[in-house]
């Protein structure tokens, strides 16, 4: 017993070092797995406030660029108005697919919330955005996030009362279901941690004809994003002889260097398919 105490006294510094190192490594691996911890809500609130101060200044220098992209977004919306389209003859009919419930009301599936980006990084291996919108404003975890031109930015992973943390596409664990617009093949979009604004599209079979410049959109399979949001365009195609699928490099449609505003997409009909899926999994077990 005495020897143990002597041992502890002699090596106390080293043991203390091991304890602190263990603590930080535990924090690291724990957060990487769950993206939510007891303290992350508190620290998110504090860093959010500091980031907000900094962003108030930075935002001023980006006003012009933000304004330009808003005008562009508005233009594309105006071009989608029904009154802009004319019917060439009386046989064809312009019809809009509407999902109705038993009354004459439309049933809303996606609700867009605008949010100010207060913190953003592109140079890390795991990049996160911080938004000035939190649980009080209706943000919850696992919602999709798009930029002002409605192209994919990332997924909400952690929420505090006024701020939320978004895992951007530029994150090692980001995985988004995507589709080739031209032919309809689905794959998944990941990031290799190298260049910002370049992501990888995997699992596209080699039988598909892909060429540079092709559009990649969201598949609508996940409950985060509606079908058809722009993810990016094909930059180059890597033909790996050893595998039967292509690895395609995409240029992201969203510019991660200067995000100022984003939209958080809340899927209001998320629960029903989830419960159904759970039920199926249960019966199969």
């Amino acid at each position, binding site marked *: 017993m005495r020897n143990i105490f002597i041992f502890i006294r002699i090596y106390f*510094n*080293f043991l*203390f*070092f091991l304890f*602190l*190192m263990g*603590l*930080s*490594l*535990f*924090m*690291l*691996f*724990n*957060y*990487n797995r769950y993206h939510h*911890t007891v*303290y*992350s809500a508190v*620290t*998110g609130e*504090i*860093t959010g406030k*500091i*980031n907000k101060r*900094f962003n108030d200044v930075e935002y001023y220098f980006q006003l012009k660029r933000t304004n330009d992209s808003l005008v562009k977004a508005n233009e594309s919306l105006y071009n989608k108005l029904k009154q802009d389209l004319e019917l060439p003859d009386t046989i064809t009919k312009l019809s809009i697919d509407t999902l109705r419930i038993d009354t004459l009301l439309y049933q809303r599936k996606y609700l867009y919330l605008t949010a100010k980006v207060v*913190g953003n*990084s*592109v*140079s*890390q*291996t*795991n990049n*996160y955005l911080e938004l000035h919108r939190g649980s009080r404003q209706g943000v919850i975890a696992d919602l999709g996030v798009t930029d002002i031109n409605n192209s994919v930015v990332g997924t909400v992973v952690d929420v505090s009362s006024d701020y939320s*943390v978004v895992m951007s596409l530029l994150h*090692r664990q980001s995985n988004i279901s995507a589709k080739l617009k031209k032919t309809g093949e689905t794959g998944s979009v990941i990031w*290799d*941690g*190298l*260049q*910002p604004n370049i992501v990888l599209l995997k699992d596209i079979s080699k039988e598909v004809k892909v060429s540079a410049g092709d559009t990649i959109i969201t598949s609508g399979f996940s409950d985060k994003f509606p079908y058809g949001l722009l993810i990016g365009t094909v930059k180059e195609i890597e033909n790996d002889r050893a595998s039967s699928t292509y690895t395609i490099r995409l240029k992201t449609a969203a510019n991660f*260097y200067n995000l100022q505003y984003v939209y958080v997409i809340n899927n209001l009909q998320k629960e029903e398919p989830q419960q159904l899926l759970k039920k199926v999994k249960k019966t199969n077990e």
Partner: protein
Amino acid sequence: MSSLIKNIIRFALFILVQVFVLNQVPPLHHFVTPYIYFLFILWLPFKMGRRTVMVLALFLGFSLDCFTKTYGLHAASCVLIAYLRPFLINLLISQEGAESNYNEPSIKSMGFAPYFTYVAILTLIHHSFLFFLEALQSGGYFYFILKTLLSSAISLLLILLTELLFVRKQRFRTNTA
């Protein structure tokens, strides 16, 4: 200015510079992510106990982690260099009694060559451990080695500039005073 207030200001400044300047600057290349915030640990007084230095290092790393949302990543690397710091100081200090005559490690108290060996070794250890932990998730020896070397080089350049721009006034203290 008392040592406590000076170090509190340094702590805040290093974190703010790291978060809002170095992390915001578009990277030269994706292998280059410079860090200088850990200079805070290297500049702590000689007399400070090892456990205090380690706790401060954990706190410094954790503060940066709160901004980059990598809880524990920088904290682990900072604790490692805080633990190794006294060994290096004992090895490299050349002047007799420099620990008692000067307050903290600097060019003046240790001499240019020993001080920069001290900074370079700890920078390399900090960066290699940091990128090793990152590489555990992403993989790739090549990526890890190249990123460590290039980032350390740029970090050391920035540290050298910091030392030249902000000369720390060191008073020579004697026992009689």
